[in-house]
């Protein structure tokens, strides 16, 4: 019962937050639509996305909303079908990175001593090694990174920023009275960490998840664009790869190259807008000031 009540209250708070903040609302709607497309791609693909059976290189028409590729595929269906991979990369990499960041950052801050020193050093070293060149080098040896290798590489290089942020915040909370009180009551470390330490950090953790997801989408599509992904998978990055390799821009098929980019940007903006709104929750100083000013005048 208490759990249900808590979930209900959280949902209420989320909906209130979304209604108050236009940026967050826009971000949430975008992500919701993309999730629906991810779950039911066949509802949104009027043609078979990989079939090369239509007149190649046609422009916009009712039958082909975004024209066709020079192979005779339907661009609109390809964009819709590519949604799934980008959304999944964003969610999975974001989730795994956040879990790693929470574990490493909070362990470091809560334990202190040599454990903190070691974990912090590890975090800082991973943080300063240039991520994108490292990813290119790792994937370069394999030549073609399929979905799971991509996820692995992005998680391997993407957790450090969040771990560092979370460690700093956990450190600042560690000596607060309510935590010391919980310890003095003789609560176990697990209780202190999960019930007292993590809940106040929720907005930072969520912001971190959104930020990492955005990084994953952009990095993965960049890798696929230069041909380091699996070029036979259906995704926005590989669409861009084929468009670039067949000189879509120069041969009068700009939509083939521009549409997947817009799709990536839509997903990215959804994540970034929500992220920005969560930043404002975590740091009240950043909230818009207009409302309070008007009140002061009247």
């Amino acid at each position, binding site marked *: 019962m208490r759990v249900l009540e808590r979930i209900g209250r959280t949902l209420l708070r989320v909906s209130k937050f979304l209604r108050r903040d236009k*940026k967050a609302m826009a971000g949430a709607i975008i992500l919701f639509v993309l999730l629906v497309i991810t779950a039911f791609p066949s509802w949104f693909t009027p043609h078979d996305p990989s079939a090369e059976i239509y007149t190649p290189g046609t422009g916009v028409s009712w039958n082909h909303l975004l024209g066709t590729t020079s192979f005779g595929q339907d661009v609109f269906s390809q964009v819709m079908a590519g949604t799934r991979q980008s959304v999944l990369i964003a969610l999975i990499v974001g989730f795994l990175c956040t879990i790693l960041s929470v574990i490493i950052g909070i362990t470091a801050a809560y334990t202190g001593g040599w454990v903190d020193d070691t974990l912090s*050093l590890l975090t800082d070293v991973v943080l300063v090694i240039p991520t994108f060149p490292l990813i290119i080098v790792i994937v370069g040896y394999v030549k073609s990174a399929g979905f799971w290798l991509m996820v692995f590489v992005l998680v391997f290089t993407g957790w450090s920023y969040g771990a560092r942020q979370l460690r700093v915040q956990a450190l600042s909370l560690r000596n607060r009275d309510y935590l010391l009180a919980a310890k003095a009551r003789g609560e176990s470390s697990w209780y202190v960490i999960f019930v007292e330490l993590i809940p106040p950090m929720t907005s930072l953790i969520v912001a971190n998840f959104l930020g990492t997801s955005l990084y994953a989408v*952009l990095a993965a599509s960049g890798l696929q664009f*230069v041909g380091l992904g699996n070029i036979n998978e259906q995704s926005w990055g590989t669409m861009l790869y084929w468009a670039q390799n067949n000189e879509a821009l120069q041969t009068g098929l700009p939509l083939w190259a521009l549409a997947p980019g817009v799709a990536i940007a839509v997903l990215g*903006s959804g994540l*970034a*807008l929500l992220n920005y709104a969560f930043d404002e929750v975590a740091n009240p100083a950043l909230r818009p000031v207009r409302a309070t000013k008007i009140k002061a005048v009247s």
Partner: protein
Amino acid sequence: MRFLTRRIGFLLVALWAALTVNFFIPRLMPGNPAEAMMARFKGHINPAAIHALEVAFGVNSHQSLVSAYFAYLNDTIHGNLGISLLNFPLPVSTVIARALPWSLGLVGLSTIFGFIIGTALGAISAWRRGGLLDNVLPPVFIVVSAFPYFWIGLLSIWFFALTLGWLPILGGYSETVTPTLTFSFVLDILDHAVLPAFTILITSIGGWILTMRNNMITVVAEDYVRMARAKGLKPRRILWQYAGRNALLPNLTGFAMSLGFVISGAILVEYVFNYPGVGFLLLQAVQSEDFPLMQALFLLITMAVLIAIFVADIATALLDPRTRTN
């Protein structure tokens, strides 16, 4: 002093980690990529070079992993980076030296301009909280920062080069122009640099605006800014000399990091424009499986970034006494 030794220690540890990662990645990969590369190049390059490669990547050698590792560290420290396969028989260092000026010029200048413009806009929009800039810039650049930056390059090629025909599509200079130091050649280079520079500027500026704005919002609420106002100082002086200077400090490290990244070029932008810089070279090395060149480029980029961060840390400590007491 203790601060300095700590930073130097960290620099060395990070460098060592990068070297070690560089050494072990090809050895941990499934299917031994180095052996496959060797098989492809056998017969095309001379046996001495093949042997050097075998030693470098641990193929067919009876060397133990540990002694190979130390030999590799020793070679790298002495600047012995091997021979590029893509440009055989040129040494890797010569190939990189050729690409470096292009990246330094293009990415260096656009990074610096991006930082200056973005920081100024961010400071002003925080100063006039709720003003026009403050309402328009953040949401616009949140959306822009979500675009893949290579795609902005594609869009600008399509619009400015293909549709309007104002600027060249590809390359660092026209193939018809002889590369000599004449006025027309310099003009030609600038002509080719406009679109990639514009792409980098558009995509980098947003980050500076948002971070500077956020720093500035915190700083403006400080007592010394209120004090400066109470003293009746000119708003412009408070904005730049009091608040701006302090809000800038946390951004120094970020700026230094992006200066370090100048060496790496803007990888995907250079790729889109076939711009002959370091980033394009890295992708060429990857695509033609030129592993020595790839490794050397990764090390060079890492070293540049690490040294830039080191310099920024020292500079921040000199400029901001608060960071010195750890």
